[in-house]
């Protein structure tokens, strides 16, 4: 089992310059998958989720092409070889 996380440009420096992180683990859901990402690259955590554990309001997380806002949030299942994409929302700046 494996999954990948695709990072946007602003988060790439916090992952050693990587814009894609491939992980050989099988998390039950997006929350668990992000926990793996944060374990590997702790500085990313505060950028993506609040202290209360919620995805920041202007950050979007997708599994494949679907936003997790419509599929159960952090409880969204992560299928084998899933690609989790983190993107800034169309706001800010």
């Amino acid at each position, binding site marked *: 089992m494996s999954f990948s996380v695709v990072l946007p440009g*602003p*988060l790439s420096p916090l992952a050693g310059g990587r814009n894609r992180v491939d992980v050989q683990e099988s998390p039950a859901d997006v929350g668990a998958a992000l926990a793996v990402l944060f374990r590997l690259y702790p*500085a990313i955590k*505060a*950028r*993506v989720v*609040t*202290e*209360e*554990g*919620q995805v*920041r309001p*202007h*950050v979007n997380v997708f599994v494949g092409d679907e936003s997790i806002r419509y599929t159960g949030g952090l409880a969204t299942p992560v299928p084998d070889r899933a690609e989790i994409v983190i993107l*800034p*929302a169309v*706001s*800010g*700046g």
Partner: protein
Amino acid sequence: MPEARHLSSCRDGDVLLLVGTMKGVFLLKTDRRRASWEAAGPYFPGQAMYALAYDGRAGRHRIWAGAESGHWGPALHSSDDFGRTWIEPTGPTVRFPEDGGLTLKRIWQIRPGGGSDPDTLYCGVEPAALFVSRDAGTTWSLVTGLHDHPHRPRWEPGGGGLCLHTILPDPADSRRMRIAISTGGVYRTDDGGATWRASNKGVRAEFLPEKYPEFGQCVHKVVQHPAQPARLFLQNHWGLYRSDDGGENWIDIANGVPSDFGFAMVSHPHDPDTVYIVPLESDAFRCTPEGKLRVYRTRNAGASWEPLRRGLPQKSAFETVLRDAMDADRLKPAGIYFGTRSGKVFASRDDGDAWKAIAEGLPPVVCVRAAVVGDAAAKMRPAKPRDTRARPSRARRRAA
């Protein structure tokens, strides 16, 4: 994103102006004559920069910046090379405990500690809380004595949010400090932050049925002079006040100002009787009265105020100067600086007598901090004994 332009050099004795805007940080630099300025930036383009500080203690040349990304949230950064590179704290940073039910919204204030310890720093944040670092900013922790205060659930957000925006470490006693919250009022500790008590006697809360409550005032800024730490000046949400007993009691000093509403307030670096403010018309119209941009200065601890207008626009100048968008350097005569929400920065190099625009066309300015590079003692000099008796002043009620 725009490529930041860096300062060509920065030497001891240069005057550095840190300008925080809604879209990044700009640095302005000059020499001791303060005749012409070099500009650098933007750093953190697109991010709101409400809190900046310069830490020149222990031989450092460190700039601190509280950045707020609309996407990625707030984060604390520092630079030891005048903005060329920035790092974040390597240990626990300014962030609430994950089981506390709070999310950091904004860093409002970064303040080097007073006294002889060159490694203490404080951060005031929204929602209102105080963080401290004892290792020059490498690691941070929440000041639980304030966070657990029974008043905290009853603090309410002002127009800018529920923010802890003022931190005043007492230069004469490292265990004593005042902070100010909007809206919550002034609080003081005398035991290094373990316990806190409200310190608002005489400060009016225009927006509450009880006009003089123990706490809940919308204090906008408090300043303290290092040579006379028991004397404080306070710009309130309606009201100008002075305390001569360390904040135990406050008296009205709105004598001759066009409005006692405003945000910014700065103490003169060498004269504890001299303070600068920029009055705004009202809470409903937060612009300079009559379309005239005037700084008001008292040289007698609030007994009277004089308008300073030379070099400032006096026609159609509906400007707003926010609570941290004003500061002073430590030279003689003092340099006084402020920035406006319309993106202008004004400077005076003669104690405020005359002014000049040194930057225009910036994003809205929300923070201005002045420092003399190499001035290691800045803001941490021990207090010298001084007569702290109150001067007479005409108590004045604000016109309804």
